[in-house]
């Protein structure tokens, strides 16, 4: 399962090298961001075409989460623009300068971008079903019946149809994360962002979450995934980008970057992250 290649990968890898004819779905250009006194992002450029899966790797503290959060305007960059589907995120051009949008305007942009967090962040006071249907009902003005119908469909896809009435606290981490993915998908986003979706899970629970993400990749969903699972990145990613110290130090077709890295920092990072061959044999 883990070593199988999705047929879409071949296709995407070839379109990637093609001439720049169409606008990429996500385009981060020269993003700079400080946090306190730290310069966290130092002129990051990143693109993702429609249907492309980009895996973002790198040591902790590199700025991966910050970059992801700038893409859906949970945070706003100090300098540089993020475009999603051709629309600048977090600001609007007014009289020649880029002016920040209000929270209310930002929420409209965020609705089209799904995000999955390391700690799941399900709403603990709502049942699994309410977690999923709340946003589509409020924001998309869907009827309860329609939202519930699709919630059940999504729950079936992530294999948790029987948990609709449960509360998040009574589910395992892996189940919670699959619900969180279903919740994000219920908004029918055009882009999905994952911030270390399996880092908070026990090792034996990571596969059930990674399999759901792989299935999603096969449907052609555009995804940017921060992960430390190198093997998973090999399987699912078209493009791998390696970040270190606020900058992308290496980026290219996933198989090249992950198998024949050129940057010495990537080499040491990969060497440290690759699973122990003995552990894999078990």
């Amino acid at each position, binding site marked *: 399962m883990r070593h199988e290649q999705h047929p879409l990968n071949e296709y995407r890898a070839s379109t990637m090298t093609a001439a720049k004819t169409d606008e990429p779905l996500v385009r981060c250009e020269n993003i700079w961001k400080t946090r306190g006194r730290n310069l966290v992002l130092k002129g990051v450029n990143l693109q993702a075409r429609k249907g492309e899966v980009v895996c973002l790797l790198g040591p902790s503290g590199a700025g991966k989460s910050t970059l992801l959060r700038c893409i*859906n305007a*949970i945070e706003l960059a100090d300098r540089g623009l993020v475009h999603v589907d051709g629309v600048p995120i977090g600001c609007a051009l007014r009289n020649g300068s880029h002016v920040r949008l209000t*929270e*209310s305007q*930002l*929420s*409209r*942009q*965020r*609705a*089209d*971008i*799904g*995000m999955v*967090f390391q*700690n799941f*962040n*399900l*709403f*603990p*006071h*709502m*049942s699994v079903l309410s977690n999923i249907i*709340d*946003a589509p009902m*409020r*924001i998309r003005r869907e009827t309860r019946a329609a939202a519930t119908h699709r919630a059940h469909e999504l729950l079936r896809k992530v294999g948790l149809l029987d948990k609709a009435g449960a*509360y*998040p*606290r*009574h*589910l*395992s*981490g*892996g189940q*919670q994360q699959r619900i*969180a993915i279903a*919740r*994000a998908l219920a*908004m029918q986003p055009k882009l999905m962002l994952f911030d270390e979706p399996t880092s*908070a*899970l*026990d090792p034996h*629970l990571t596969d059930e979450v990674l399999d759901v993400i792989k299935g999603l990749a096969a449907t052609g969903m555009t995804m940017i995934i921060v992960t430390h699972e190198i093997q998973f990145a090999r399987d699912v990613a078209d493009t791998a980008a390696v970040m270190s110290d606020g900058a992308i130090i290496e980026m290219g077709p996933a198989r090249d970057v992950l198998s024949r890295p050129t940057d010495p920092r990537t080499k040491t990072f990969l060497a440290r992250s690759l699973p122990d061959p003995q552990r894999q044999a078990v």
Partner: protein
Amino acid sequence: MSAHLALDTAETSTDMSKAPEIINPPRLGRWIGVILVGTVMAWIVYQALTNPGFQWDVVGRYLLDVGVLKGVAMTLQLTAIVMIVGLLIGIVVAVMRMSGDPLLIFCAHAFVWFFRGTPVLVQLVFWYNLAALFPAIEIGIPFGGPKFFEIPATVAISSFTAALLGLGLNEGAYMAEIIRAGLMSVDNGQSEASKALGHKPWHTFWVVVLPQAMKAIVPPTGNQVIGMLKYTSIASVVALYELMHSVELIYSRNFEIVPLLIVAALWYLFLVSILSVIQYFIEKHYSKGWQGQDDRGA
């Protein structure tokens, strides 16, 4: 090796009688405690029954007196309105405090500083005597501009309004701190997840963050309500006809001070008991999703 061990354990666990039973140590301290508490309670009951000073017949006569019942109604009404005002002010001030906007944070700080820092008694008397400071309440341009609307302050500020303002603003300052503590107890990831789904700020606050904060807000708020119920008696200084004032008026006529204080105490005790029950159910409501054992895997 490990298989052998497992088999061993499986064999012994079938015979329960072989496992040593664990019993509790003798609890001498508890028995002494029971005797002490029992003695004190027996003395209290004995006093209550035999001491003629309690005058239970007078207590019985005034417990359901129309004047006292009116006082009870006013106490309940004032407590309810003051708590609602305090809760609303508290939410607004707490949100201002956490907004990140320097001006709003300053205003919230100033509000809490002033109304928590001055005695309620002073605030009550101040509002009641507002007429001395501002002879008329007017709406218009300040610093001597034109007036659009004007009423004399003595008309506007009744006993009830003064009590409401004094107690409500003070309560708002305390509630702001309780609500702020509650909001801070909710993990940041919750509002982030709500934002990421595309919820508007007010939805994130009312539907995602506040209900979770309620778990931490309800118990101290219950304390505040119970405290306020009794604290409304301070409004008797501005001649508001609440429970305490109603019994004061009666014992100033017939001098049956102790039995009438008992009447008031019994009513407060009864009302507080009801509030405690209500608090129990509200707490149960807001612990939805947290009930049951923490048995999740990872």
